[in-house]
């Protein structure tokens, strides 16, 4: 409690977190071990780490969907015991309601985010437009491509308007161009509304392009292998960045962090 006062600027504080899953007929699977990191108010933190190391699991704990085995998780200074308010979670799977149209799926975010009734249609329509899904308002999820579904899921998160956004590989199924456009839109919203973001990705360039800070996890059990502040001025342009020394240094450092044998 006092802790949060000390770091009044932290939206999320993860301290010495450890998580393990029971396995029938075997010892528990230790997935996360003594992980600590923080997310400041208005900070954009990218998370990278090997597949299966525990990134999604940490997000599940942050959103109150899963209980940790040890450690502290504070959001806005409060211990997380159930889903905290204003925290939105975009799952790795799209988790769309199959019986709801695209319109309705996104509207759910707006409804639960407390968007006033009269503002919802306009908000949803503008999101659909931004996501490049115009014309598919009345389609059902099964009639969309994988990338389109991911965008609907993104739209739902944005319609929910959380102040802390937990995003689990949100652009994984998108092509480069769409990815970059979506990233730009995300940054626009983030900057305009001083939101905090935890952004899991496998794309190191993307992490550098978007984030203020990058947390690198080791292979399972996840430990914080390294943390990097991205000292690049915004707006960042990928083709310009490629020549930038800081960009190359970061890329290389994260690369070698991830290639460490475990």
């Amino acid at each position, binding site marked *: 409690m006092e802790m949060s006062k000390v770091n009044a600027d932290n939206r999320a504080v993860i301290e010495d977190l450890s998580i393990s899953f029971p396995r029938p007929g075997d010892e528990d699977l230790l997935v996360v071990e003594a992980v600590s990191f923080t997310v400041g108010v208005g900070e954009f933190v990218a998370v990278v780490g090997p597949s299966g190391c525990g990134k999604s699991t940490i997000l*599940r704990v942050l*959103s*109150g*969907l899963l209980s940790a085995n040890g450690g502290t998780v504070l959001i806005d200074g409060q211990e997380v015991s*159930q*889903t905290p*308010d204003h*925290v*939105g*979670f975009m*799952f790795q*799977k799209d*988790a769309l*309601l*199959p*019986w*709801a149209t695209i319109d309705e799926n996104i509207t*759910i*975010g707006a*409804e*639960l*985010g407390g968007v006033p009734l009269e503002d919802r249609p306009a908000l949803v329509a503008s999101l659909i437009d931004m996501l490049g899904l115009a014309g598919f308002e009345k389609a*059902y999820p*099964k009639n969309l491509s994988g990338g389109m579904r991911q965008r609907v899921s993104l739209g739902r998160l944005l319609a*929910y308007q959380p102040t802390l956004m937990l995003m689990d590989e949100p652009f994984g199924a998108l092509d480069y161009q769409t990815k970059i456009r979506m990233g730009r839109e995300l940054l626009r919203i983030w900057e305009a509304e001083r939101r905090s973001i935890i952004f899991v990705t496998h794309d190191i360039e993307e992490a550098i392009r978007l984030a203020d800070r990058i947390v690198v996890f080791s292979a399972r059990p996840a430990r914080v292998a390294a943390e990097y502040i991205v000292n690049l001025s915004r707006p960042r342009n990928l083709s310009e960045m490629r020549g930038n020394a800081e960009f190359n240094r970061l890329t290389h450092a994260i690369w070698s962090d991830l290639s460490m044998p475990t």
Partner: protein
Amino acid sequence: MASVDKVTPMPPGRVRLGSIMPLSSVAARRLILFFALVAAWEFTAEFLVNEFWSSRPSEIVMRLFSMLVDGTLWRHTSITVLEAFAGLLLGAVVGTPLGIWLANAPKASETADPFIMGLYGLPRVALAPLFILWFGIGLLSKIMMSFTMVVFVFLLNSREGVRTVDPDLVDLMRSMRAKSLYRARKVLIPAIVPWILASFRLGIGLSLIGAVVGELVGSSRGLGWYIQNAGGMLDTTGVFTGLVVLMVIAMLANQMIALVEARVLRWR
């Protein structure tokens, strides 16, 4: 390589919704089946089995006609349909929420489960005295009889349905702090619609059976009464006329469910 414009016939990934044409062909196939069954029945009665056992379609049609004319058809059918329908509806309204609640309250569910199942297995006919004592011999007792047949179907099916809900969708709702009512509306109910529809299909038959059994133990009209009366007089044609009417009711009710299904499960 010449371009071929014709559509290559390949198996479609999903079955498409029937257009008008296939629908009417369904009706045609049903009619053919219907007449084949009737003809077989008439033939059996004519040549194979004494009609004392199974009457015959022609006599049943004549009986139906005379019942239609003198109003007894409506008199008996209306009350039975009312009883069964009320019982079915009540069963759905009580059983579904109860099933959902039990699925979400595993402790209560586990505790109550054996007792619920025990009650379900009781032959309703044997409980007749208690039904009469509690609910009299009016409409209520038949509705309750019908209700006690179907409520378990809704309860068990909807409980099982909730258990098959995609846990990711439940997590999603929790991650957005959706209230339980909202969760039910957006996730639970749509997910268990197939189960509820299956319950309705199962419930139609059971509610009719319940109503008829109810009429056996305290009635002066209804198809159950009519069948019992005819049976008491060894009037086989009367018995089968009653049964045929019950069949027709069940068929019509089932068609209504099919219509609802086509509307409600469009997303599938």
